[in-house]
């Protein structure tokens, strides 16, 4: 049965108010910006955002007032600096107060790994001695029952939905992703449901020709959205490069509340869909992000 639907329908059906949502699981690449923008347009409220670093997507959702709580290792603008909306929310309660549950990249990975394993927690030596244990009350310090040494127990997380951008998927959500994966697999397995956003929808035979490249079992996928360019300004290996300047423009534009409202209007609120977004971006700019060359992997033989 095909799970293909529009971004609008996928967000309306599977990202209700109050959801806990993983995005940006691959770190700096494959960030589902198109999905985030649809969430903003639909004015979804009281979300819990879960992710390692998220780049500027979390900052945008926070600035748009969609977020009640952030469970993350880092929120900001990777190549340009601080996230102004995140700062305003934490420092001044603009647009409203935000609950921040601090993690490191390792502990957020362990939380979702535990969630995917169905385990209550996973122990680590990381973060011992840090004040992160003070501002994340969910962690527990303990002693190893085996060696007696100090350990930190990282509780599992099972988010409502993981939104994962991938290179290609079939219409059932059997999806191929390549490049570094960050915590994409952990997020997929820990979450109740997965929304796949794909650059391309391809025949099932292409996916099963290379099962090692499949991200997660498709029976967890609730929606497949075909959205070419849906990760812009983040990069998608083999499809397009990172739009570095866009991050700097965002950084400059969102310095003030008024500037943020203007940016949000121009790039999200007053934009109907991704096609209109790219019209605004301009053909020349989009062409500048195209691959300079193809680098195909050697085929592998699954013969028997």
């Amino acid at each position, binding site marked *: 049965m095909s799970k293909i639907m529009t971004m609008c329908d996928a967000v309306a059906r599977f990202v209700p108010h109050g959801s806990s949502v993983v995005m940006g699981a691959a770190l700096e690449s494959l960030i589902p910006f198109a999905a985030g923008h649809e969430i903003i347009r639909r004015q979804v409220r009281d979300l819990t955002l879960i992710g390692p670093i998220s*780049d500027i997507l979390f900052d945008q959702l926070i600035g748009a007032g969609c977020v009640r709580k952030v469970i993350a290792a*880092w929120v900001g603008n990777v190549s340009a600096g601080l996230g102004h909306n995140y700062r305003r929310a934490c*420092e001044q309660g603009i647009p409203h107060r935000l609950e921040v549950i601090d993690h490191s990249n390792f502990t957020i990975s362990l939380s979702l790994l535990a969630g995917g394993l169905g385990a209550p927690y996973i122990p680590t030596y990381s973060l011992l*001695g840090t*004040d992160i244990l003070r501002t994340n009350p969910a962690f527990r310090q303990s002693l190893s029952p085996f060696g007696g040494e100090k350990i930190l127990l990282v509780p599992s997380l099972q988010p409502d939905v993981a939104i994962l951008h991938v290179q290609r998927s079939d219409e059932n959500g059997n999806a191929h992703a390549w490049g*570094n994966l960050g915590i994409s697999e952990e997020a997929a397995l820990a979450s109740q449901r997965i929304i796949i956003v794909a650059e391309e929808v391809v025949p099932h035979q292409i996916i099963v020709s290379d099962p090692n490249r499949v991200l997660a079992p498709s029976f967890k996928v609730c929606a497949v959205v075909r959205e070419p360019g849906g990760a812009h300004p*983040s990069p998608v290996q083999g499809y397009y490069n990172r739009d570095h300047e866009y991050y700097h423009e965002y950084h400059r534009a969102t310095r003030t509340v008024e500037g943020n409202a203007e940016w949000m209007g121009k790039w999200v609120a007053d934009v109907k869909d991704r096609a209109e977004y790219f019209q605004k971006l301009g053909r020349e700019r989009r062409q500048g992000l195209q691959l300079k060359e193809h680098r195909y992997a050697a085929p592998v033989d699954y013969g028997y």
Partner: protein
Amino acid sequence: MPRPSIMGTEMDYTPQEIMVAAAAREIRDGEIVFTGMRLPLIAFALAKQMHAPNAVGLFECGLVRDTPAPELLYTMGDPPNIAGALWATRMINMMGLLQRGAVDLGFIGGAELDRFGNLNTSYLGNPESPKTKLPGSGGAADIAGLSRRFVVIMAHEKRRMVERVDYITSPGFGDGQGWRERVGLRHGGPSAIITTRCVFGFESSEAVLRSYHPGQSVASVRAETGWDLRVAEDVHETESPTAEELTIVRRYDPQGFWTR
């Protein structure tokens, strides 16, 4: 191409370029290095081409490389860093290598640093109602806690170099000798701090001024440091980047995005 001068004195390189050169010298040949972001990305490329051809770079997003990326990286997840990688995988595998003790050296940056090498990238002021909310740990707390040693790279300003950080995001030596063992960290700790003005080493878990960059002095470093400065007996001027090192850095970052 003209380059801005360093702190008003006549230099033919920028503070960032001498920092990159100093950071590259912290990498020993054959080491497994957690490369971090920004300047350390360039330091890794420089070390590989100079004295450490067998160093291996780990990127927490899930990448292992034995060659520098073919072009400048703005983030570690940029497509040129993935093409030609030794391994493209999950972040948890990078963190597992770190926790397993396989990583010799990690690089991290900081907004606020104290004389025990503790770093704060989370909250200035009370976390309940912060004066400034900083982005958070990312992987820095993991690198500081779990690598065999780590090196800090940051801008040197008095307001950043404080007696005690408001919040320990990435642990150095806590409140001094024995602290890491006491809290349960099994090895590691900071081995150097490279700033826009100088390089610190560590003695008895405390930062000690090892060298000041050309144009600086013990006095100028002391004036911009918020704790009672300790100075190594053999304190000296930081070695300037060589012409060869500058050529490599500028070939890698021709627009000076990170190094100017």
